[in-house]
């Protein structure tokens, strides 16, 4: 073989993998904010939720390929190689993100937790969504509103609605009322965490 630097290259490859993880995380936000749980053994993942409902979490294998041909291997610059791995990380993010959304969609459809709207999204639709989800509150009683994941069209529409919640007195009052209701629900939920006789 030709002289090589395997130890050094392993360290460089580690850096490349760390960069891929960062790119992947940036393209899967906010899903990437959810913690990563490793399944160290077994081939099935099952869960029982707080209501005692058992479900199986399907495992899906995702892979992307980075190809470097013999013809280009000598001419590729480090920047070009990094760009290819960035692209691979983006592709991976697309795949894992899609799986995440599909899985979420199946879950909410199965329990009927869906709000449909036609044309342009309205404040009513947003309120309908918030009414359907559980909202937690922090120690100061501030709501921990869920993150909205949406396409660019919906993003611009929602961006117009959100400021109105603070400006429009009627919407402001409705939001406050909803949060009061959600606070009560949260308090009931938290109070139910108890060991009883």
């Amino acid at each position, binding site marked *: 073989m030709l002289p090589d630097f395997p130890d050094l290259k392993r360290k460089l490859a580690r850096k490349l993998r760390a960069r891929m993880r960062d790119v992947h995380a940036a393209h899967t936000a906010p899903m990437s904010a959810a913690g*990563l749980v490793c399944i160290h*053994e*077994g081939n*099935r993942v099952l*869960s029982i939720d707080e209501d005692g409902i058992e479900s199986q979490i399907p495992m899906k294998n995702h892979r992307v390929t980075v190809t470097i041909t013999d013809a280009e291997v000598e001419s590729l610059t480090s920047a070009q190689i990094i760009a290819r791995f960035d692209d691979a990380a983006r592709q991976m993010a697309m795949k894992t993100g899609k799986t995440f959304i599909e899985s979420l969609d199946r879950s909410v459809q199965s329990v009927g937790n869906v709000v449909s709207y036609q044309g342009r999204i309205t404040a009513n639709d947003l309120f309908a969504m918030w009414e359907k989800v559980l909202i937690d509150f922090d120690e100061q009683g501030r709501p921990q509103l869920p993150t909205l994941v949406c396409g660019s069209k919906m993003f611009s529409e929602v961006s117009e609605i959100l400021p109105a919640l603070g400006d429009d007195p009627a919407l402001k009052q409705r939001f406050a009322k909803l949060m009061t209701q959600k606070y009560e629900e949260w308090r009931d939920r938290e109070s*139910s965490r*108890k*060991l*009883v006789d």
Partner: protein
Amino acid sequence: MIERVVENWLTDATERSFQVPFCHMLSSKGFTVLHMSRHCGMELGKDVIAVDPTGVPCAFQLKTPQGKRITLSEWRNGISQQVHDLVTLKLIHPSLPTHSHHRSFLVTNRGIDEEVARAIDDLNRHWSDSGHHHLKLETIVGGSIQKDALDLGSNLWPTELADARTLLELFLHDGAEHLPKVKLASLLERTMGLAEGSPKPSQAEAVRSCSSAALLCAIATKAFAERENHFAQIEAWTMLVAHVLAVAERRRLPSRLWQGAFDIGVKAIHNALANLVEELKARPHVVEGDPTTDTEVRRVRTTCLLALVAIHELWNGGEEDFAKRFCEKYRGQLLLWGESAVPQILAFYWFWKNVDATPRSDFLLANLIEHICQANAPGAELGQAIASPYYSAEEVLAQRFAVTDEPWEEDFRRNSYSLEAIIHLFVRENWKQTMKHLWPGITRVWFNRCDVKAKWRWFLWKTEKADHWSVCPPFTKKWADLRNEAWEDRGKSIPSTLKEWPLLALLFLIVYPHRLNADVVRWLDSCFRNGKHIPSACDAKKAP
């Protein structure tokens, strides 16, 4: 290559390090091993006592000479007197009748000088001429041991390059570090036909693989034996015993076919435990290696030592005051450095509960519950979460001190593999009001566990054939229901072969912390409560 490794191992081995594999060789030839020396001051005068296939008791004295052979000077300066006692003094062992004659063997892993061979011949002739025809010293030398070793293992040992490399890596290990358990498990699984996808061995192959793997284990862990790294030896022999049980469970072998290999392994574990305790008694402190950096790891070591001292004492039925003094001195240093430490802390708990009449041991459990619920709560700091039992002390400490190249990605918050087990132990102690206080925090952490699909797989380091469960505790729970759950103790996930051995099961959990679950812990707790933990295999055996 294997031949060279065996030769090298045998040449370098000491009496201590070749005793266990020698016993396995005897066992594979049909001997029943009754006793293995710890090589300490007070022994029965013989390193190994066994009964040969015809029922004749045999005594073996193991000797490693300074050079390549036992010289006349070594013979005169000690060995001749020892073998005289070996041959002429009666074998005293509870399993042997006091009136029986025995065969005597001088065993060396190297050679015997011609003059010594002559001296032995003279001695034998002298006994014979004096009318003591039953007195005779037989010899077993390195060459024949090597042949036996190769006969036993050569066709079962790893031939794949990757496995041979793993064996060499272990063989050439420094011996001062922790045992590379993943590597050893891989070797044992491959040798014993337990690896995923490997064909099920025949009954004869399965039985033979137990002794073969024992020899491989001894060779692979030679460096740890030479360093007198007792914990590594305990781990290695526990892993071997676990794999023997896996073979027995998988093939549903009758116990007579695997009991010999199993008993020798258990004796080796017991000896290593006893040697560790002896070392602790002789030491002024528990600092090891470079003292300037020891502070950072000492509590991790102390937690492990507390567990091992506790197990040794539970094993011996609470004969000594040392364990109590040691635990009293160091119990404040117990550290939940990761969920891998939970079996160690529970071993201490089960011992300490018998010693300390105050509720302190119960509140050790409450503190564990509170700590896990706080550290692994959804909103806790990511870096403070307690690592799952799939991570070793070295891995956890390397992350904590930021001396690793690759920071973990795994988020341990919201999950725990040991919380449910500890809760059940605490509930058994009936601290209802404290439990009520703890419950809200508990509901924020999901109970994880891995259910293997066939019980023999429980002994494997990891298996694909298993279900990973994540269970959210119900927000509202009735105390009566929780108590009923906590008192269930059938131990349905535990392989039947292990059920006679609660202490071995506990040791197994210390070596394989990811196998700890509420079911095993409840069963163990019931065993300790009912005094069912005293092992029988190290007790006197009935001679065949």
